[in-house]
């Protein structure tokens, strides 16, 4: 956000010097931009949430230490008090307009719920139930996010759901690999993120779905999950770019949706590619990924800084994969890069010509950086 504010300030200065706006308008615009963006992001809220996470970690470790000075019933009572005081106190603060501390207290209460589950496991010497414990914790947090309409709790629930999926995959046994029902879990999470207005939670959910596809491949050898991920991501990207208004109404992610589309496309393709590294398909996929990255830049890169950086990162990543894995021999790879480079150069030349023709009447306006 600071980046946007400073670039807007530069623009305003330039417009004022060019005589497009007077001093009063310039300061009015600057003040409005600042006020508007302060609403979206507050350092105080972030610090309150970080504080809640630290206090929550202290609480979890206090339980883990199994400190006998504290009888276990006292520990249970402490957890119950933190849950009640956290949710209730947070609600009181929220009504008084203290949003930052309200969210912090709610987060602390949700952590205490997880601590309570862990404490019961410790009290009764339970073993082998960690996945169930994570799921219960995530479910409780999801309920809290919905009931309290809390963005940070929605993110917490999304993280716990992903942690549950990863735990089942990593500590798997019979019937305990990547849970196929994970996408179904993502649906209520998504609905709650709409209700709580949490854009960050939606990003987390999309990324956990990408992780789901990757785990399906790694744990169950389901390659088509990744191809599906790449295809769906490409479709989402096209939707975000071609039907921007509708996409905004459906996903509400702004510029981020195109970024997620590109990210999913690269993730899916790159892992499949690594799997097919000694076949003809590798060459084809490398070409598709490069073409996809370039297409993404051309279609949406102009006004979307995050997308540009994702595309650059994807380009370098893909270059690295092809460079390291090689297409048979170094000469073949060299030839592939040469053809790809010449194609791009031709494309750049064409685009430059078109841009110069469009921009000719206002040639003094500088292009956007990065």
């Amino acid at each position, binding site marked *: 956000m600071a980046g946007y504010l400073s670039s807007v300030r530069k623009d305003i200065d330039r417009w004022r010097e060019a005589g497009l706006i007077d001093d009063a308008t310039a300061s009015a615009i600057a003040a409005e931009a600042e006020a508007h963006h302060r609403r979206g992001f507050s350092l105080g809220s972030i610090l309150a949430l970080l504080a809640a996470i630290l206090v929550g970690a202290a609480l979890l470790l206090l339980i*883990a230490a199994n400190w006998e000075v504290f009888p276990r019933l006292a520990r249970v009572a402490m957890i119950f008090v933190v849950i009640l005081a956290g949710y209730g106190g947070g609600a009181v603060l929220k009504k008084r307009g203290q949003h930052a501390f309200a969210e912090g207290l709610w987060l602390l209460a949700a952590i205490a719920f997880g601590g309570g589950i862990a404490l019961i496991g410790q009290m*009764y010497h339970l073993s082998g139930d960690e996945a169930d414990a994570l799921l219960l914790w995530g479910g409780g947090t999801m309920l809290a996010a919905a009931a309290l309409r809390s963005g940070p709790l929605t993110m917490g629930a999304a993280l716990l759901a992903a942690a549950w999926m990863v735990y089942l995959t990593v500590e798997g046994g019979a019937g305990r690999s990547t849970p196929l029902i994970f996408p179904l879990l993502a649906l209520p999470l998504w609905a709650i993120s709409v209700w709580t207005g949490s854009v960050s939670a939606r990003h987390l959910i999309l990324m956990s779905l990408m992780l789901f596809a990757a785990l399906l491949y790694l744990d169950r050898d389901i390659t088509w999950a990744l191809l599906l991920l790449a295809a769906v991501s490409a479709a989402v990207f096209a939707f975000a770019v071609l039907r921007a208004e509708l996409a905004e109404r459906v996903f509400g992610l702004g510029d981020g949706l195109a970024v997620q589309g590109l990210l999913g496309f690269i993730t899916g393709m790159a892992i499949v590619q690594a799997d097919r590294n000694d076949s003809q398909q590798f060459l084809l996929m490398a070409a598709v990924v490069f073409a996809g990255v370039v297409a993404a830049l051309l279609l949406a890169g102009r006004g979307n800084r995050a997308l540009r950086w994702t595309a650059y990162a994807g380009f370098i990543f893909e270059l690295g994969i092809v460079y390291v894995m090689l297409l048979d021999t170094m000469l073949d790879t060299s030839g592939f890069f040469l053809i790809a480079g010449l194609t791009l150069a031709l494309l750049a030349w064409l685009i430059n010509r078109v841009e110069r023709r469009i921009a000719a009447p206002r040639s003094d306006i500088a292009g956007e950086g990065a």
Partner: protein
Amino acid sequence: MKLHSRYLVAIAVVLALVQIGVLASMIMGRAAILRDGREVVLEVLPVDPRDLLRGEYVRLDYNISSLPIELFEGLDPDNADLATDIVHVRVSPNDEGIWEPVAARFGAAPQAVAAADEVDIRGGTFLRNVTGARIIAVDYGIERFYLPEGEGRAVEENLRERNFRMVVAVDDSGAAQIKAFYDGETLIYREPLY
């Protein structure tokens, strides 16, 4: 929206009570196994202590943790993709008072009706397929014994030197719960209900 904000405190309190209720019901469920479950005595075979979120614990194995494949009913050892990872193990006491496995089955209790001195314990296995297996490892959810921080190593040393026994409570569904820990004949730990 206005409605939500007006009742926010009430909603928060109900939410807190629901979560507290979930935790309390978990505690009551465990206490019920301890109070009403049948007692089974198992021999303890120590493994190693570790640290995790829930604190320091000793990992334990029992005399019923590794079962020979012959014990299992209705299992074709040459073609045995497992439809379930749930195992029901029937135990019965020997002359020294240690309960030994007498039968086991995947997915359901052994078919014969359990005798008065027999108890069925429910466990799980990490296998996907038992083709060619001679031994099946089963977990019962009682493989950890939590200790105050710093005591895990010492207890583990003792476990290696002497014979320990565990009294385990088992409810009707077969869920097992650690109840009392004996060093030979000496009681070193008894689980309070709450």
